[in-house]
């Protein structure tokens, strides 16, 4: 990974020096190794603080949405799964493809620092992935842990190392982790009774503090004005117009991105309360696949999504209303 970081950095400097791009959207070193944050690098800022390590899980596609009116050209670093979101943004005309230079970077699965900490490891100073294991260097010495135990939720259901869109690739030879069935948990929930499901979601959603991180990080949530923004409150997007918003927020959020959601898992990754929000989105993905045929948002640009399309033999909503059993 260190080698790859160096390679990306060198290439980024080259691109900036040659004037081919005006800025690079990448990850900036945080205070610790495990908290890199997305950042824009320009000639002025230099790339001294650039980093690419196993904690760079953030999907950078969304950071281009704000640049649509800019006439500057930006290079963006995208992991294979992030390219789905990029395709989706291009489809929806939320980014200007002509002003974007996409650098596909290799990925060997990203790690969830919370999971590492939950395994009793603290004071992390470095990590290196060694096949199935992760060696974690800490201020107390080295420990080894199984990689599958500490992967980010979205990496557990990895869709492989193929970039769906890119102008150039760096380190694409890295092997992405083996994927497990992404609908496993959705199936489990569906098999529960309605009361159990309600208790499950009540337990999860009651922890929500409405910080709106899921909305702000989601590459599909790109409306300039959101229905949940309350302009009259004076504190935009933070105050609720009514108590009801608190309750309905997650249903509407998930519905609004249904059929456009690439299942990138950003919502759950950024949630400070660890609410499995991706399970809502994934339910829509599963339903769409079942009812209207297999569909993967962002597989390629300019696809027509199933909710802006129809068939004359579609199933009727009464199938749901009259469903037998739980």
């Amino acid at each position, binding site marked *: 990974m260190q080698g790859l970081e160096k390679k990306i950095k060198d290439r980024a400097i080259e691109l900036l020096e040659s004037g081919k791009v005006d800025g690079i959207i990448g990850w900036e070193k945080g205070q610790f190794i495990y908290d890199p944050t997305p950042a824009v690098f320009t000639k002025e800022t230099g790339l001294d603080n650039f980093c690419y390590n196993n904690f760079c899980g953030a999907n950078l596609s969304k950071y281009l949405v704000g640049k649509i009116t800019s006439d500057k050209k930006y290079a963006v670093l995208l992991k294979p799964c992030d390219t789905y979101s990029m395709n989706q943004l291009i489809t929806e005309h939320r980014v200007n493809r002509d002003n974007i230079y996409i650098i596909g970077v290799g990925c060997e699965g990203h790690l969830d620092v919370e999971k590492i900490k939950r395994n009793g490891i603290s004071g992390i100073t470095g990590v290196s992935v060694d096949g199935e294991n992760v060696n974690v260097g800490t201020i107390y010495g080295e420990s080894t842990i199984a990689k599958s135990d500490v992967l980010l939720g979205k990496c557990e259901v990895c869709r492989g190392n193929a970039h769906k869109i890119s102008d150039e690739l760096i380190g694409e030879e890295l092997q992405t982790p083996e994927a497990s069935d992404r609908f496993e948990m959705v199936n489990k929930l569906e098999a529960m009774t309605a009361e159990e499901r309600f208790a499950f979601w009540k337990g999860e959603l009651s922890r929500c503090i409405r910080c709106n991180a899921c909305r702000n990080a989601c590459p599909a949530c790109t409306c300039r004005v959101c229905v949940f923004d309350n302009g009259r409150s004076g504190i935009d997007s933070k105050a609720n117009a009514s108590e009801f918003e608190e309750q309905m927020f997650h249903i509407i959020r998930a519905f609004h991105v249904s059929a456009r959601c690439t299942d990138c898992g950003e919502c759950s990754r950024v949630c400070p309360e660890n609410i499995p929000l991706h399970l809502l989105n994934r339910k829509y993905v599963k339903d769409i696949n079942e009812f209207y045929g297999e569909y993967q948002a962002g597989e390629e640009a300019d696809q027509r999504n199933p909710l802006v399309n129809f068939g004359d033999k579609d199933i009727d909503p*009464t199938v749901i209303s009259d469903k037998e059993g739980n």
Partner: protein
Amino acid sequence: MQEVKEFKPNIVAFCCNWCSYAGADLAGSSRLSYPADVKIIRVPCSGRVNPMFILKAFEKGADGVIICGCHPGDCHYNTGNFYARRRMTLLYSMLDYMGIEKGRTRVEWVSAAEGAKFSNVMNKFCGDIKELGECVKLGDIRCKD
């Protein structure tokens, strides 16, 4: 002696201007009865119904929401109800997934000539909601313990 009050459900029906709204009219002029608990909201097409409308209706105290549109293929705007059909299927499936009683939401296709069907649908839906009782789950899904 305390009077035992019968549960009077609040039912919101989103009716398409071109079919079921006229269907309701026909039911009235044909002297077919349907429960007075049904509050009809006229929409230009079932495709106009935003999932937010349904949830808002529940917020304002609805116990059941039914959407009535033209039969698939007969939409005044050709395709509006096809889109509505997909949207509502997904939304209802999500509500069921979250543990909300699936009988509280419904879609029925009622044409302007089907006054009898309109009254039957409303009588049956109202009966179902009476059985389910007051809708508390949707308002309780967060922060109410």
